[in-house]
């Protein structure tokens, strides 16, 4: 459903993205990985329309620029990495901002807000002021908002995650990724996530794209992409593998 064809971004002659081509299918968890400065965030910004990159980016066969704004917002959402707020909305009001592109009755809206806040485990602090929440709690509130935003999509939507687990403790990292994975499996969400923890990539992603210096180095299943040689080459780190009883591979 998401198709990138030779996407490049060269501000002031500096190449940040170099002819990146990839495609993401509905129902897929897609990891973007690479060392610092590889162009992961830039690529995510190009997809979300924050920067104007050359080349073609299509969602459901239609160039992103050709989409109606509101329609696009119902089908493409971004979970921001860190988000501040100028004025102290309550957590619930932040979630309600996800209603912006939607047309819902008051009751429908209320029910959906509750549903998404339960799903992301932020019901406990619904009436707390957003700025008073911890980084992890804020991110879950933002996730609830984003899920609300996508709740009226007519096709399975695309969700972009920029390091979704960076501010979370271990339990919430797992919960968040499991939740997103479920959305991909049961509702056909396509999820593109920047992940730094390679074990999370191994555990949750169906496919991943390894970027370095703005170029695609490999696209395949995580087990194929994350070979010891590649990790050595791109991260300058000699990894070791441990195979757990469940058969899961862990990089150390």
């Amino acid at each position: 459903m998401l198709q990138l064809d030779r996407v490049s971004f060269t501000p002031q002659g500096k190449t940040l993205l170099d002819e990146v081509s990839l495609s993401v299918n509905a129902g897929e968890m897609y990891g973007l990985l690479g060392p610092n400065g590889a162009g992961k965030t830039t690529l995510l910004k190009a997809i979300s329309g924050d920067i104007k990159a050359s080349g073609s980016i299509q969602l459901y066969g239609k160039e992103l620029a050709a989409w109606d704004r509101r329609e696009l917002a119902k089908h493409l959402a971004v979970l921001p990495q860190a988000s501040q707020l100028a004025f102290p909305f309550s957590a619930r009001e932040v979630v309600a901002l996800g209603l912006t592109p939607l047309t819902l009755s008051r009751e429908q809206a209320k029910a959906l807000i509750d549903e998404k806040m339960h799903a992301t485990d932020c019901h406990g602090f619904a009436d707390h002021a957003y700025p008073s929440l911890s980084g992890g709690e804020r991110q879950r509130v933002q996730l609830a908002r984003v899920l609300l935003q996508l709740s009226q999509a007519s096709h399975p939507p695309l969700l972009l995650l920029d390091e979704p687990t960076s501010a979370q403790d271990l339990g919430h990292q797992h919960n968040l990724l499991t939740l997103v994975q479920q959305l991909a499996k049961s509702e056909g969400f396509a999820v593109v996530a920047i992940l730094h923890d390679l074990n999370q990539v191994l555990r949750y992603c169906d496919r991943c794209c390894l970027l370095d210096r703005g170029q695609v180095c490999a696209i395949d299943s995580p087990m194929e992409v994350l070979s010891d040689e590649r990790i050595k080459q791109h991260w300058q780190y000699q990894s070791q593998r441990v195979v757990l009883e469940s058969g899961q591979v862990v990089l150390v």
Partner: protein
Amino acid sequence: MQRSVSLWAFALVCLLVISGLLSLVVGAMNVPILDSLLLVVDKTFGANFSQLQEYQEVVVLELRLPRLLLAIFVGAILAQCGAVIQGLFRNPLADPGIIGVSSGAAVGAIVAIVLFPAAWGSWTIPTNAFIGGLLTTLLVYGFAQSKNGTSVLVLLLAGVAISSFAGAAIGFLSYFADDASLRELSVWQMGSLTSASTANLWLAFTTMVLLMIAFQRRAQALNALLLGEPEARHLGINVEQLKLQMIILTAIGVGVAVSCAGIIGFVGLVVPHLVRLATGPNHHYLLPLSALLGAVLLMCSDLLARIVVQPAELPVGLVTVLLGAPFFLILLVQQRKNWS
């Protein structure tokens, strides 16, 4: 939340009515209180209860009534513009006065007063105030805009620079002005509601109503903008268009307010703050409640301005600054920890 909003709205409407009635009956000339109130009833319903002399009727109907109406309209306009500007810049310290927009509008108006008083009839001053306000808003906004969003520091400093520049321009113009313009000019700079006239009132009223409608329609978009510009864009909002619309609308609002009442500072800063403390930053409630509180505040300030040095009176702009400046300092102290 809904209930507390309704309660606040009700309380503010009551306050508005009370301060309105007070403004009608209190003043330098002693007019019987009951008869003043009855006079309004008479005029509205065509009755004949009031026992006022003709000169007393003139005081109530042609001096006090237009003035209190102008206070309501201008107060509501300024407070809403303040709320919108703060939301737009995502900063609680932004205010049409502090970032230099009011000074810009004043320069526009004073250019009209001194250089070409009658170029477009009675529209000369409002038009020029509007152009001055718009240009300064765009200028300040342009200066404060950077890759990382809007810089508060640059915003405030640009405001200082532009206000000083406006001060110099006004000084320069006063040097060349004749006596009549000089008098009009000084009234303008301090802000005064004495120039309430039918034309003024209609202009202010229409502007207030149009701004209320236009702002309220964009309340959800303004809420989303508080998340940040990229986030608002991801929610399907045309951010650049929204910003431009809001800037033009506020420039119109401030331009009209300045042309009717001169520079009245701090209403746009203080009022949205107080409302946010009471009901939170949701623009759906913030905008109408700010309009109400702005009207109440300006009317009370004007009342104060009329009674403290009876039988003379203070310019109402002085009163709002006297009340607002300490408030601004308190805010600044609170914000300090965010900046360091």
